[in-house]
């Protein structure tokens, strides 16, 4: 406050000058504080506050994208979408008055067959995840309920319906376990890298190819980002981003819908639990894969009732389990293909070696009898396979009991190990071996070490062996194609909405096994005789089948169960293109129930198709 002395007013004295200087000092200090604070907020921290301001005024809404369709190899639709109405509550539009709010929620709970408590919990949880966003109370509500709510809109402020996509299954239960279903992502899955970017409440594939190929099927939700004011209301012209939803890509499976249907119909006709698979022996493409009993995948498009939960999850028949890939079964005589391969390749057996069958094989005081008490006398490999002579293979099993040859070949053929299939839930199974049992014994988990008897059992697919149609089909395919262990798969290609192929799936084989061509041909000859030779075990079923095939029956004994029926067939003989493996729990003798289902499948594959079109075998069957 510099003033010339002649300007100073007469009221000034020394005391006042000091006071005014202090007054001015205070003013300078206060302005300095304001300027510094302004500098801090706008210049130093400006970016941070700008980001906060931007975040403040936008709200994003996602519109769900329809999932891609799932098609069979010929383009037939297996899974499509339909639109359904979801019931939502917009919490911001609910009555503010607690009593009115309570009354409305109570009415809603009654209409949706829920309880007020459950409804409040749903709202509470959803709002925690996405504050102020509409809460979905129920998916796939009926039209009558929607009409009722619309007519009584004034009684239900804040209640909205939204179109959502749900899965539709034109073929009902067809390939249910294989296809899987769609459901909301759970908190654990949200953390997985493959679900990066998803939000709670998003739908993902559960089980089956819906799970494996979720990435392609899922699609990208549309995003609308709008500008809102402090109350969260959209502002005029406030649409900032609008990205339409991108539908998921279509997935074409290697499944042949007709073959699949034939297999499922065959299984259903038997009415017993079991599974089947038909696979291309060269590429590993799966043409049909099914399990019985089955379920309606459409069930999962809406909330399950308690009765439905009981029926699907707590049913002892386990309809959700895919018995073809997740079963744990002994195989019976179908294992003899592996035993024969091991014996031939390890040199203990030649095609001309005869083994005498006196009706039983006795070792260490224990006697292993032929099935049905038969005695075939002296046999070489081909007739032994034709009649499924047990003593012949007991002898081979005993001769290899501590050489590990049988286990080596079974393991090489894929028994008791992961197959690399593109379906979740496939199991490893168990291949019993000397090492395995002795280890258990050492740990005190079993009462005896490995013995000859164990290997004799394994040679005929009995004992501790646990496998399933998938692994057996791979083993048969490996011999049939001359030693390539294929990677089984159901996914064939991904196409966009216009049908353009975006990606083809042709997984490389798991490995190659060196097999003498003579081994292959003599075993296939034996299996051909077994299926279509006059004294073959399945002659009654396949004797009249026009296409030459090579097939083996199996009758497995399971503790606590009646005999399990198996049939595995390679066709056409002598250069098989496909393998079909069928097993039926408590189905009895192999030719009794499993072989007829295999026949249904082969008929569908070779004959229905051959007349309809060029057919899967390229117009030159057999």
């Amino acid at each position, binding site marked *: *406050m510099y003033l010339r002395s002649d300007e100073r007013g007469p*009221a*000034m004295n020394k005391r006042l000058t000091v006071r*005014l200087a202090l007054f001015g000092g205070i003013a300078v200090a206060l*302005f300095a504080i304001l300027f510094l604070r*302004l500098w801090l907020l*706008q210049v130093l921290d400006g970016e941070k*506050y700008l980001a906060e301001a931007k975040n403040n005024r936008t709200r994003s809404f996602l519109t769900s994208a329809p999932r891609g369709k799932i098609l069979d190899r010929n383009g037939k639709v297996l899974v499509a979408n339909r639109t359904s109405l979801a019931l939502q509550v917009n919490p911001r539009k609910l009555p503010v008055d607690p009593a009115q709010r309570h009354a409305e929620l109570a009415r809603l709970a009654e209409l949706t067959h829920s309880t007020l408590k459950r409804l409040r919990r749903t709202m509470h949880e959803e709002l925690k995840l996405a504050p102020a966003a509409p809460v979905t109370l129920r998916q796939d509500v009926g039209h009558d309920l929607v009409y009722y709510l619309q007519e009584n809109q004034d009684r239900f402020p804040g209640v909205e319906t939204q179109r959502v996509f749900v899965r539709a299954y034109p073929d009902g239960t067809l390939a249910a376990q294989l296809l899987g279903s769609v459901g909301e992502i759970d908190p654990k899955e949200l953390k997985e890298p493959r679900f990066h970017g998803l939000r709670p409440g998003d739908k993902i594939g559960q089980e089956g190819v819906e799970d494996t190929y979720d990435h392609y099927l899922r699609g990208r939700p549309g995003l609308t980002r709008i500008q809102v004011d402090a109350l969260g209301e959209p502002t005029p012209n406030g649409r900032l981003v609008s990205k339409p939803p991108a539908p998921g890509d279509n997935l074409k499976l290697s499944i042949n819908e007709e073959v699949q249907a034939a297999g499922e119909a065959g299984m259903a006709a038997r009415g017993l639990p079991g599974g089947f698979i038909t696979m291309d022996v060269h590429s590993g493409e799966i043409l049909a894969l099914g399990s019985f009993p089955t379920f309606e995948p459409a069930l999962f498009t809406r909330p399950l009732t308690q009765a439905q939960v009981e029926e699907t999850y707590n049913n002892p028949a386990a309809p959700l389990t895919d018995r073809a890939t997740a079963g744990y079964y002994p195989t019976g005589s179908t294992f003899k293909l592996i035993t024969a391969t091991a014996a031939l390749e390890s040199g203990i057996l030649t095609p001309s070696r005869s083994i005498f069958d006196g009706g039983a094989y006795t070792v260490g005081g224990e006697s292993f009898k032929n099935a049905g008490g038969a005695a075939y006398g002296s046999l070489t490999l081909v007739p032994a396979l034709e009649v499924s002579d047990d003593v012949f293979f007991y002898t081979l099993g005993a001769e290899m009991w501590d050489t590990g040859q049988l286990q080596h070949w079974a393991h090489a053929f894929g028994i008791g190990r992961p197959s690399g299939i593109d379906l979740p839930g496939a199991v490893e199974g168990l291949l019993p071996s000397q090492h395995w049992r002795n280890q258990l014994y050492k740990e005190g988990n079993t009462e005896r070490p490995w013995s000859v008897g164990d290997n004799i059992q394994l040679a005929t697919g009995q004992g501790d062996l646990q496998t399933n149609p998938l692994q057996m089909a791979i083993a048969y395919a490996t011999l049939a194609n001359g030693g390539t262990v294929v990677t089984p798969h159901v996914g064939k290609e991904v196409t966009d909405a216009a049908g353009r192929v975006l990606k083809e799936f042709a997984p490389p084989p798991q490995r190659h096994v060196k097999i003498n061509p003579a081994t292959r041909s003599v075993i296939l000859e034996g299996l051909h005789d077994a299926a279509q030779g006059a004294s073959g075990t399945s002659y009654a079923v396949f004797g009249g089948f026009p296409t030459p095939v090579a097939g083996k029956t199996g009758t497995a004994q399971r503790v606590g169960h009646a005999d399990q029926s198996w049939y595995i067939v390679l066709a056409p003989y002598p250069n098989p293109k496909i393998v079909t493996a069928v097993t039926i729990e408590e189905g009895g003798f192999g030719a009794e129930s499993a072989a007829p289902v295999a026949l249904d499948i082969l008929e569908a594959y070779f004959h229905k198709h051959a007349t309809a079109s060029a057919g899967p075998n390229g117009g030159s069957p057999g």
Partner: protein
Amino acid sequence: MYATRARRARPEPFAVHPGIAERLGLPYMDGSLALSAAALVAFSVFTLAQATKHDVPGSPYYYVDRQAIYGVLGIIAMYLLTRIDYSRFRELRVGIYTFLCVSISLVFVFGFAARGSRRSFELPFFSFQPSELGKVLLVLALAGFVIDGARSGSDWQRTVRYLCLGLAPAALVFMQPDLGTALVFGAITLAVMYVGGVRWTHFAVIGAAFVAMTVAVLVLAPAVGTPVLKGYQEQRLTSFLHPSADPSDAGYQQNQAKIAIGSGEKTGRGDRATQTRLNFVPERHTDFIFAVIGERYGFMGAALVLSLYALLIWRALRIVTLSKNSYGTLVAGGIAGMLLFQVFVNVGMNLGIMPITGIPLPLMSYGGSSVLATFVAVGVLQSIHMQARLSQKGRFAW
């Protein structure tokens, strides 16, 4: 050229035939003071024009038109006051003081209630808030009482008398309830007493009493169940200490104002401003108008406004020293204190370093009473300036 300029800067005291400027008294006015006040109200009108287009449906210039009219009326009032010798107010001090207290009291009877508080009379085209003009009236009256009683009673008696005279209208305003204006009344009282020479020891006692009272009001009174402040008042006063994410909370408003100002960065967001355009910041045309300036015009705009206030207050303090008599010194000191207090508390509130007290930003915040009262205060300052200049002239002349 140089000669002309020199004549304008320092009027020729012996002019025999005074020019038009001389007759209007312009050479005796403080140009910087007048210009800074006019610039602030012009900036206010400019800001309101851009920021409140959609506030009143159908009339985009509702606030702009009114604020412009208040500004023009204010400038006229300022000029008229310039021509009055402020020393007359000293003689009228009792009348002024009576009018002050009565007008504030009448609000309780005839007042127009807005948001739970009776502060103003509803006149045609205008709602008049007596407590705004009351700020200036208090300065004029209190300064008169201080001069008048300078020789009667002991120091302590005088201190208590000034305090009572100042705090009585403050208490009336507080009961409206209008905590912010009551605090301004308190600040005015202290400023006049300070310039009036009240002893430092007395200020120390007053300061201690103030601290004790604050503790009593904010901590003890609620604890024993007889709160003095209304819940929202207490919440506002303490909100700057704890920012909040709850939109219904005072801390949220303050946080939003802070975000608004920060997001303006150096050069401002102009029409892309969102914080103050989309209602995240409340009361953007009144108490939080500084946040609008900060967001729209950035540091450049906000610093310009602060600089104008600095200029205004510097000129006021300068006039304190120029005054030809002690009454003018006290009045100018009171007005300077009033302006400084209001600017600091309001801008500090916008910047998140002072509590929310509902004190408008002089000349910037929309509101006729506030704009007019501030111009009246500036007019009084001009009058003091003019009288000082005239007496200097006189000293030279006679």
